[in-house]
């Protein structure tokens, strides 16, 4: 085991830049992001479609589509070791064993012609060399019980399970090797609300029991509020705000995009009929604006926003990339007036 003398940091991403290159265009999917997952804590990565959330997750596991996806620069440290420097063989030891991933759609991530028991056993056998059959079976049954499926059902095929149950199977496979980090990419988006609540409760419960750190990717701020300790808000390939949930949900300083997201949520408790949307659309990632990526849609836009990309401003754990909070804000602000 590697030493950890870094305040419990399990995963540390620095300056990561990922592009998708095709003959026609270069899509800047992830731009110089910083991200930290702490042992035993859950980081929520929120953002809209196309913000680069899944690309970030796939680069951690080095699963980007080989033909187009490229990690241009940066480093991803897992337990202090830069995993971008590992070769494919060493990566396979980490992948599934120490970092596991749950994908969004449980219908397509299971093999339809293999029983669920065999699929869980496959993961265990792959990472545990010569484990005797009996023990593999015992572990399969234990893990099924853990995710709330009767162990007898291990002989059934995925089509015999409902959507919620399938997602439990996928989570069982991910947890079968007791990973240190679980990446869950929209694990409940395809499920109905009452089933979503069941699965989320189960994930929370298992996470607390096993002490697994988690990177939870979602577009739902409600899920973040209920399950995460830390949050990173992603927009057009950049992390524009990050901090603890308290910083982001109740802090007095907020990125205009985060504020806009909260405003546009339909609120169960408000009496207002009309919603306050964010005008416009996310910029085309093959043609990003020169300045702040959010500037074209921002209500607080200043001259500098269109010229310069804001660097992050940090206060305790709360990190914001917005000229409003830049140090030289006062002078710029006057210029804008």
């Amino acid at each position, binding site marked *: 085991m590697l030493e950890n003398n870094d305040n419990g940091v399990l995963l540390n991403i620095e300056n990561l830049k990922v592009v998708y290159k095709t003959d026609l265009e270069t899509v800047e999917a992830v731009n110089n992001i910083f991200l930290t997952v702490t042992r035993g804590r859950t980081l929520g990565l929120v953002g*809209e*479609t196309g913000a680069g959330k899944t690309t970030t997750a796939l680069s951690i596991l080095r699963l980007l589509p080989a033909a187009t996806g490229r990690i241009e620069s940066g480093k991803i440290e897992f337990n202090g070791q830069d995993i971008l420097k590992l070769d494919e063989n060493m990566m396979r030891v980490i992948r599934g064993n120490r970092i596991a991933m749950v994908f969004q759609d449980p219908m397509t991530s299971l093999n339809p012609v293999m029983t669920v028991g065999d699929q869980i056993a496959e993961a265990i056998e792959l990472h545990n060399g010569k484990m005797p059959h009996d023990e593999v079976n015992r572990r399969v049954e234990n893990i099924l019980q853990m995710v709330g499926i009767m162990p007898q059902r291990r002989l059934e095929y995925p089509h015999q399970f*409902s959507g*919620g*149950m399938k997602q439990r199977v996928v989570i069982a496979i991910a947890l079968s090797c007791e990973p240190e980090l679980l990446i869950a990419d929209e694990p409940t988006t395809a499920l*109905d*609300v*009452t*089933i*979503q*609540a*069941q699965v*989320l*409760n189960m994930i929370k419960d298992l996470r607390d029991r096993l002490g697994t750190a988690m990177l939870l990717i979602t*577009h*739902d*701020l*409600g*899920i*973040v*509020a*209920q*399950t995460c300790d830390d949050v990173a808000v992603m927009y057009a390939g950049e992390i524009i705000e990050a901090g603890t*949930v*308290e910083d982001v*949900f*109740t802090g007095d300083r907020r990125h205009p995009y985060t504020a*806009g*997201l*909260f*405003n*546009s*949520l*339909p*609120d*169960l408790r408000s*009496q*207002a*009929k*009309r*919603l*306050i*949307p*964010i*005008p416009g*659309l996310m910029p085309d990632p093959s043609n990003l604006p020169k300045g702040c990526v959010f500037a074209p849609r921002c209500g607080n836009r200043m001259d500098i926003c269109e010229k310069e990309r804001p660097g992050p401003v940090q206060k305790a754990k709360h990190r914001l990339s917005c000229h409003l909070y830049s140090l030289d804000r006062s002078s710029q602000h006057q210029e804008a007036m």
Partner: protein
Amino acid sequence: MQEKNIPLIETVELRKLFKLKGGSMLHAVDGINIKISSGETLGVVGESGCGKSTVGRLILRLIEPTSGQVLFNGQDISKFKGRQVHDMRRNMQIIFQDPYSSIDPRMSVIELIAEYLFIHKVFENKMETFNRAAELMDMVGLARRYASSYPHELDGGRRQRIGIARALSLDPKFIVCDEPVSALDVSIQAQILNLLMDLQEEFKLTYMFVTHDLSVVKHISDKIMVMYLGKCVEIADFDELFENPLHPYTNALLAAIPEPDISRRNKEMKVIRGEVASPINVKPGCRFAARCDDCMEMCRGNDPELIETSNGHSVACFKRVKAS
């Protein structure tokens, strides 16, 4: 004024059973009675498979009901044939969930919007038709420069605007909105919801808004109907339903929504057990009984009727009706 009292849309014991292989019956919609007055929005919520989209399609006669009636302005449209159905569609339209699979990818935006106008021969020449289509683009907030673009070039929000323009093109009185914002991101979802509300006000439209998302339905509806396995379990005014939900299933739905509020973080999320039962060959008895904590002897075997407990608030639950 007798006219005033006739709801624009009314269904009477609307029922749709799908026949399956081996003679079993799938109860998609099982006796739904709704009334929607002119200018109102009825929100229909429920989980996947509860029959909410089927109700919308039955009303438009995109599928034929097994039994029951659909009245439009007091007129029974379930007996309409051929030409009458064609004409009826001028008054009743639908906006689909997935704006990509519901439009022809090989038609340009303006052609898509003009399609219904051509089918119904609203104008005499192409020129007038395309002018009207261009007006519709303005109405739904699509810049005219997209007129000759194809759907794949547009994002989800704009594609949904095409769907809305198409539905509006014939000046309908009633529109079924079938999960129109479910595929969209929140910031775009808010834009589309606002657009739908503006259009309703401007053209005095009547909506039936079908969705699985209670927080969306609250913003747009006057009345909300909660469905479970083909039955209406509760119907009430939107504020009443949220302040005073009666049916255990409505309560469970409300409790299951993760709220973007960290002060509620540690409250125990009340989760109902089990999953929706199969709608095939349903036995009599409350459909929710197997998942209900308040299930009593009489809930199994007897169908609870939808009973009005207070003004405009009806619930189909033995326990709640008794209590009030």
